[in-house]
């Protein structure tokens, strides 16, 4: 099964880190990503720019509304994601719990909706 692991953290925590601390976390991310590449679980993933760079788009009554900022103000912000292949939710949870931000923020595990080509 495929799962998306979305990573949430209060951006202020990240901004408050010293360069050494930030480098250390980045290093942990490289090691983690490398690990799930080698194990064959990695399908994709990206880190995102801070929410200050976000733009939200809506179409209402055929008109486009563009607003500055994320769709909702939340205490923790989406900072990145992975798309993984896992045998089941147990394996997906085990992988999610190795993401460095799991210790300081949280990781949401969501199965991908598979389009059924054959109902059998």
């Amino acid at each position, binding site marked *: 099964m495929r799962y998306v692991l979305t990573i949430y953290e209060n951006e202020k925590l990240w901004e408050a880190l010293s360069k050494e601390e930030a480098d250390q976390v980045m290093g942990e991310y490289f090691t983690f990503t490398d690990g799930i590449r080698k194990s064959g679980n990695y399908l994709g993933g990206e880190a995102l720019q801070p929410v200050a760079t976000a733009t939200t788009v809506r179409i209402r009554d055929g008109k486009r509304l563009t607003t500055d900022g994320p769709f909702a103000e939340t205490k923790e912000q989406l900072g990145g994601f992975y798309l993984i292949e896992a045998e089941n*939710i147990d394996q997906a949870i085990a992988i999610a719990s190795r993401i460095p931000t799991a210790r300081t923020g949280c990781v949401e*595990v969501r*199965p991908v909706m598979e389009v059924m080509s054959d109902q059998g």
Partner: protein
Amino acid sequence: MSTPASLLERTYREDHGRIVATVIRVLGGDFGAAEEVVQEAFADALVQWPREGAPREPRAWLIRAARNKAVDRVRRGVRLGARVDALEVVARIEQELAPPPDGSEWEGFPDDTLRLLFTCCHPALAPEAQVALALRTLCGLTTEEVAHAFLVPPATMAQRLVRAQRKIRDAGIPYIVPEPDALGERTRGVLHTVYLVFSEGYAATDGPELLRVELCAEALRLGRLARSLLPRHAEVASLLALMLLHHSRRRARVAADGGLVLLDRQDRALWDREAIREGLAELDAALALGGRGPYTLQAAIAALHAQAARPEDTDWAQIAVLYERLCELSPGPVVELNRAAAVAMARGPEHGLALVDDLETSGRLTDYHLLPAARAELLRRMGRVKEAVASYRRALALVKTAPERRFLEERLAELLGGANT
């Protein structure tokens, strides 16, 4: 001689979990379909047994019926091109749900029951969904019964169950016994769920009744099941011991008017000796398995109470020590409050009051009625009546269940009556 109806009821209670556990596996983890198949088998029995007389081998009859329903179901769902799979499933069903030969017990597949237990208690499911699933599948309660036990409308409960089954399917919750490296953590999850069922029955958080004995009985069934499936886990034995020892006081704990009777005022002749004996034996087993965890400590505390012939024989010093260790192991305001009460009994109310003060200043139990209730009790024993009255009033403002309210009102009335003379 039992009637067909009572025989069916007994078989249902004893075998529903085991049969459904195997049907879920042979149907590829489909909880909803498995449950319907087993329901249909029992529904047939409900019609046929009273009419034609109960079968000589009720268990074999039901398994055969469940098997036929499962096979029917798979065959009905067969589409061109998917035949091979369906035939495979049918073969598996026919082989694995073979009725036992006449006269022999159907043992079922203990591994399937264990799979079902772990899947129901999967941490990706909400606690209330875990509890509902376990009662529905393993204990074979109807949705209406589960709804009644948790005081929610049947439609709400049905929806909760459907949502849980859907999450199992769509989120990929596997129908397996966890790997050894996850087994400890997952077993703690199972114990927590069983304990939730028990505590909801033993100290109902809401509603007119203080004790819901049926719910406690279901928790005991789940506890015994876990015990038989995980015989080497000390904490499993400890939880069973803990539940048995608490359950042994059920008749003494509720007064004729439905009110709460505290331990020191209970008629100990009403305690269930058989439950105590079994509870103590399970605690011994847990200790022999090296049990030192939170459930073992709580069971040991319950055992010390159970072994005191009169309240004044209680070994409070040892209970205080056990609570201290419990506070280290699983710290929490409620445990600390219990520790304060034990310390008060062992060393005097002023020592207990000091601990209650600490708890109060920590601000972690601000809306929990037992904190002012405990404070009131200690102040009463120290003769500080005015302060005790104020604390009882604060407890009354926070209490939720009717029997506990009555209990506090009685205590307050006693105090006011005494103060007036």
